[in-house]
């Protein structure tokens, strides 16, 4: 691959991780709940998906392809969904503060992920990472690998199926939110829970389901990170936590619209990889210390995006009106 193509390639993979996190968070935020637990959910999903694949691969000589796909996918979704349910139990039913609960969920999820990875390492006896190679092979199987279609194939067809499924998910989420009755109800809950309640919408149920499914999608994002981006390797020192925060920021960047997430996240990822790719592309040699400085780019860009988004006060680009507020029916 040429340096330019490999930059695009890694950006699309990295962007997909952020996109899945952002899609899950958009769904959650549409119910009026700002979940700062996304990094924790990604850890939970990534770890559960990886661990289940790892255990399954070791339990059988001849792994079944369908099971190789289904087991980790369901495990990662379920584990992160449980995290989402814990969050909604705390914030919807017990009415705890959303920011604080989210941060606690992040601590817990990251803790569980690192703890679990250490246990897996003690199983394998390896010191740095454990690997689920058969699962990774199934998940990264692509058209380009067998046909070799040149630059076109390298840019567009060299990814595992989840990469395309993520785009499909963005479209489906957009259709769900904007074109279905349930989507309308969910948006109503996020905008004005009291009005939605009065209209007979089960506010609590919508909040729970949106948070749980949103959490599950974040979890798949974490799993995708392990299986496609890290080629099926799980090590305790992975960058999932930072990605989780970028996903939360990307929700604002894509103005709470799922249809904007693919483009926004690919752009984000391009900037993320700029620091390491631009020097190779232009042939400029850069000291390692300066590379560390260049790695700030995505965070600086996120800040700039936040500022720009906040200076433009277009009504349709704002988040749900009740975002972050606890709904208590008997108040007012």
């Amino acid at each position, binding site marked *: 691959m040429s340096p330019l193509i490999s930059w695009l390639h890694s950006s699309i993979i990295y962007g997909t991780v952020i996109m899945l996190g952002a899609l899950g968070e958009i769904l959650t935020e549409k119910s009026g709940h700002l979940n700062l637990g996304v990094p924790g959910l990604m850890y939970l999903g990534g770890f559960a998906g990886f661990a289940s694949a790892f255990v399954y691969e070791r339990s059988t000589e001849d792994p079944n392809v369908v099971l190789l796909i289904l087991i980790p996918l369901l495990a990662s979704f379920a584990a992160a969904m449980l995290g989402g349910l814990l969050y909604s139990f705390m914030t919807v039913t017990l009415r705890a503060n959303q920011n604080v609960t989210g941060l606690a969920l992040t601590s817990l999820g990251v803790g569980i992920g690192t703890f679990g990875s250490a246990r897996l390492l003690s199983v394998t006896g390896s010191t740095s990472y454990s690997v689920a190679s058969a699962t990774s092979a199934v998940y990264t199987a692509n058209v380009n690998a067998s046909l070799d279609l040149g630059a076109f194939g390298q840019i567009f067809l060299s990814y595992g199926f989840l990469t395309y499924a993520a785009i499909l998910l963005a479209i489906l989420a957009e259709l769900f939110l904007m074109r279905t009755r349930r989507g309308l109800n969910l948006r109503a809950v996020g905008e004005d829970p009291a009005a939605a309640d009065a209209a007979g919408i089960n506010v609590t149920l919508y909040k729970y389901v949106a948070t749980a499914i949103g959490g599950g999608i974040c979890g798949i994002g974490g799993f995708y990170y392990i299986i496609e981006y890290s080629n099926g390797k799980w090590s305790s020192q992975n960058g999932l936590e930072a990605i989780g925060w970028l996903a*939360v920021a990307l929700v604002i960047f894509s103005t709470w619209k799922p249809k904007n997430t693919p483009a926004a996240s690919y752009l984000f990822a391009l900037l993320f990889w700029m620091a390491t790719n631009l020097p190779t592309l232009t042939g400029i040699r850069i000291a390692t210390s300066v590379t560390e400085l260049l790695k700030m780019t995505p965070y600086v860009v996120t800040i700039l995006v936040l500022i720009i988004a906040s200076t433009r006060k277009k009504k349709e680009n704002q988040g749900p009106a009740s975002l972050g507020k606890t709904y208590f029916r008997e108040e007012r």
Partner: protein
Amino acid sequence: MKDAKESARSGAPREPLMRLVRRDTVKPARAVAVRAAAIVLSLLVCGVFFVTVTDSSIIEIYSAMISGTFRNGITVNTFLKEACMLLIIAVGLAPAFKMSFWNVGGQGQVLAGGMAAAMWLFYFGNDLPNAVLLPLMIVSAAVGGGVWALLPAIFRVKFTTNETLFTLMMNYIAIQLVKYLRITWSPIHALGMITRKAGSLPSLFGNENGWIYVIAAAAVVLMYVYMNKTKHGYEISVVGEAPNTARYAGISEFRVIVRTAFISGAICGIAGFLYVSAIDHTISETMGGGYGFTAVIVAWLAKFNPIFMTLFSLLISFVRSGSSEIVSMNTTTLDSSIANINIGIFLFFLLGCEFFLNYKIIFRGRGEVGK
């Protein structure tokens, strides 16, 4: 959980099985009892969790947790030191939350303060006496941490930019900056940094952590006075609870938020100074090890009450040192991340118990008539 679902479905004319009423005031006795119950429950869950992942019985677990913390002077000192560092950061964050400014950038502010302090060490460590060096380090650490919180505050007031994410991103910028400085600075002063005594806080009362305890205690007391007995403190609570009232009363929102954010960051910066000068004697991006978030939760849970803040910091430090004792007994199967799980469990219980302080559950046919 049931009550909310029940009440959400109550299209039926029958009075729901139970409903919630917000409590206006909480009796101190009840506040203590509910929190104590949550702490006991969370320690029970932590114990059960340890029993499932180790071969020890629950009694062995608890005695290990206690002896890991109080066995001797060294363990007690570590326990207190960790509690104090967490407490200083929590005290720093508290005034920001009081005015509804979500400063989750504690870690970045600690690092910024640490970098500002370490800068003096690297460039003037050999030339200046400690009496000159230390004050310079403290002041610049405070300014460094303050500036790190100031930027998000300015944008928050001017453009209502989301300060939660802004401060979070500032964490990562600080992390990268530390990584850069470590590489650029290390060729000059290779390992000398760690052993050298320049810029190190002297021990106090014969205890090398003495100054950390004094600074933590001073931070708690001064913050209590600042928040409760000064005009600034009053302005903070008005801006936090009723921004419109603040505007009407002529309190400048810009001035209060920017000033408070700066103070908030400055205290975190001083924590960074302590890491550089008294604990690590160098800078690293893991300095402050995740206390940024834990401190947010401590400050929030304690409702900015300094006594509760101290208590929660001590408890979290106990869970941490107890967990690491159990890890050291089972090094082949466990690693230090288990402390984070236990702290997570602990925080969830404390967060959950707030519900029983803020709301009253009334069962059908009981309580006030009507509604």
